[in-house]
């Protein structure tokens, strides 16, 4: 009693399952592709066929759609947390490099050179008429001025590198936004035709993740399949259009200059770079304050002293801050170092002593700290900020890893899981086949019973 009906139904099921096989093949082929989202075929029965008003029979199965197994809430959390991680990690990496500029602790660092200068002043205080002691003061002061200028120059170079990098990140974000706009159009067209363009959506998700990492962009998904991307109040992508981010940075406010309101950058590498630049500027300001105080205080004391040529009013340092501190031309000759507090007293080291005492003397311009304390405090602050940013980046890394594992459990392809599912289906359908045999045997006997009539 087999019929064409059964054959058609079988062919339909076979076609549907072949789609399933293609999809599983696609999943398996992409098991190692980063950002790939597992697909699943949704099977649905085709309309029933009425044998009689009371007897209806199913007509088979069709593949209704191919779903991407994606948890959108999880995706948003991953993007937000990845943007935070990009910020913290960028800040940590940059601060680590900035910390390296200070060369502390080390013989080439400002700390060692400050001590060397104050030691030389002390030596001069005990042997004011010694040319060797005077030469030592000049060497130590010159080395210290060099260290200030070098550090300042390296800071300026680093800052300009960071600014360039920040600009590059904005440019990259703008390019990605343009790509995203084009993808939006393609996805919308495909969605309108009823298909789910899985690979385009994967590509878009990868772009979105990168945009989040760059500038902390956020996404809003529309019903027509397109996505709107924004940074703070600025719409970066809408439908097929992209609206580039401005490239003028306002580091103090961590924003990009824009009309009518500035675009505040909350996270992403760009924010990490802005934070690093702000820190660097603050360290540079402190360094300048220190150098400026040193110049002012040393000159104020030195100019009151008497040199071996019995003249007074000589300046020790020239310049205004760390960028241009040098030895003053007045002391190009070591005998012009004014060590004595009174004239005609080459054995007097009163001014040299006062200069040596600057090591521990509190300074109003430095918030009541001494010159050496202030510098130690600056180094401590740099080290502490590196450590804090490291801890925060590591902790954020754990959060992001956890979220990625969650995503992997939803969207990732697990060969074991696919195989386990298939074995489950196989067992169930094998059991079903046994029942078919039982009914078939029953029917055969019954038909033999009624057949002769």
């Amino acid at each position, binding site marked *: 009693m087999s019929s064409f009906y059964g054959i058609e139904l*079988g062919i339909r099921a076979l076609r549907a399952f*072949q789609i399933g096989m293609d999809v599983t093949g696609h999943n398996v082929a992409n098991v190692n592709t980063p950002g790939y989202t597992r697909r699943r075929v949704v099977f649905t029965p085709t309309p029933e066929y009425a044998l009689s008003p009371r007897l209806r*029979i199913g007509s088979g199965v069709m593949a209704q759609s191919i779903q991407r197994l994606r948890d959108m809430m999880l995706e948003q959390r991953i993007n937000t947390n990845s943007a935070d991680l990009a910020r913290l990690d960028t800040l940590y990496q940059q601060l680590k490099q900035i910390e390296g500029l200070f060369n502390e602790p080390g013989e080439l660092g400002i700390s060692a050179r400050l001590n060397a200068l104050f030691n030389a002043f002390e030596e001069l205080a005990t042997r004011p008429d010694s040319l060797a002691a005077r030469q030592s003061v000049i060497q130590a002061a010159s080395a210290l001025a060099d260290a200030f200028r070098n550090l300042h120059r390296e800071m300026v170079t680093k800052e300009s590198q960071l600014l360039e990098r920040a600009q590059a990140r904005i440019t990259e974000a703008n390019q990605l936004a343009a790509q995203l706009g084009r993808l939006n159009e393609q996805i919308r067209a495909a969605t309108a035709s009823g298909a789910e363009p899985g690979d385009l959506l994967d590509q878009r998700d990868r772009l979105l993740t990168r945009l989040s990492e760059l500038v902390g962009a956020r996404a809003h998904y529309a019903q027509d399949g397109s996505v709107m991307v924004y940074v703070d109040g600025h719409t970066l992508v809408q439908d097929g259009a992209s609206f580039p981010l401005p490239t003028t940075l306002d580091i103090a406010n961590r924003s990009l200059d824009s009309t009518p309101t500035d675009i505040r950058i909350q996270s992403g590498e760009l924010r990490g770079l802005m934070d690093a630049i702000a820190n660097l500027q603050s360290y540079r300001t402190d360094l300048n304050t220190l150098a400026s105080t040193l110049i002012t205080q040393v000159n104020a004391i030195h100019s009151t002293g008497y040199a071996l040529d019995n003249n007074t009013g000589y300046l020790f340092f020239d310049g205004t801050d760390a960028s241009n501190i040098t030895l003053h031309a007045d002391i190009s000759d070591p005998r012009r170092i004014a060590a004595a507090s009174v004239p005609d007293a080459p054995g007097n080291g009163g001014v040299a002593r006062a200069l040596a005492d600057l090591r521990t003397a509190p300074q109003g311009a430095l918030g009541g700290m001494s010159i050496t304390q202030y510098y130690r405090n600056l180094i401590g602050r740099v080290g502490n900020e590196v450590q804090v940013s490291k801890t925060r980046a590591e902790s954020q890394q754990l959060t992001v890893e956890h979220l990625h594992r969650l995503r992997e459990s939803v969207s990732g392809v697990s060969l074991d899981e696919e195989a386990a599912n298939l074995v489950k289906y196989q067992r169930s*359908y094998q059991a*079903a086949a046994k*029942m078919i045999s039982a009914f*078939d045997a029953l*029917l055969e006997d019954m038909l033999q019973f009624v057949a002769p009539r």
Partner: protein
Amino acid sequence: MRDPNRWLSHWVQESRRALPLLQAWRDALVRRDLTAIDALHARLQPTLQRLERLRADMPALSDTLSSDTLQQALEVARAIDEVIQSAYDIILNELDYTHALIAMLTRAAEGEHYAPLSVPRTPSTLLNTEV
């Protein structure tokens, strides 16, 4: 020996009870709804056992069968046959399908074979259907 007409009426009665369950079971096979398949499978077992008992008690051939009962028996038998025939096709397809997929997965588990990030060591990408 039981009356053949009474026996056939019993058979028609049991088979009519089985038919909607069989249809629902076949539709669950179509949907690949494992939970429904297993549940309906369990519900069909008592009916199947009763039909097996009836089969064991089948009377000897008789010329006195009521044509009305006979007609009913043929109708329900035809309906059951169609259901189990279509279910059979579906089951065969499903087993073919899972068989091929398991073969594919077994091969995929061999690291470099399907991994697009590594270059396959052999040029063969033929599907091995042995599991």
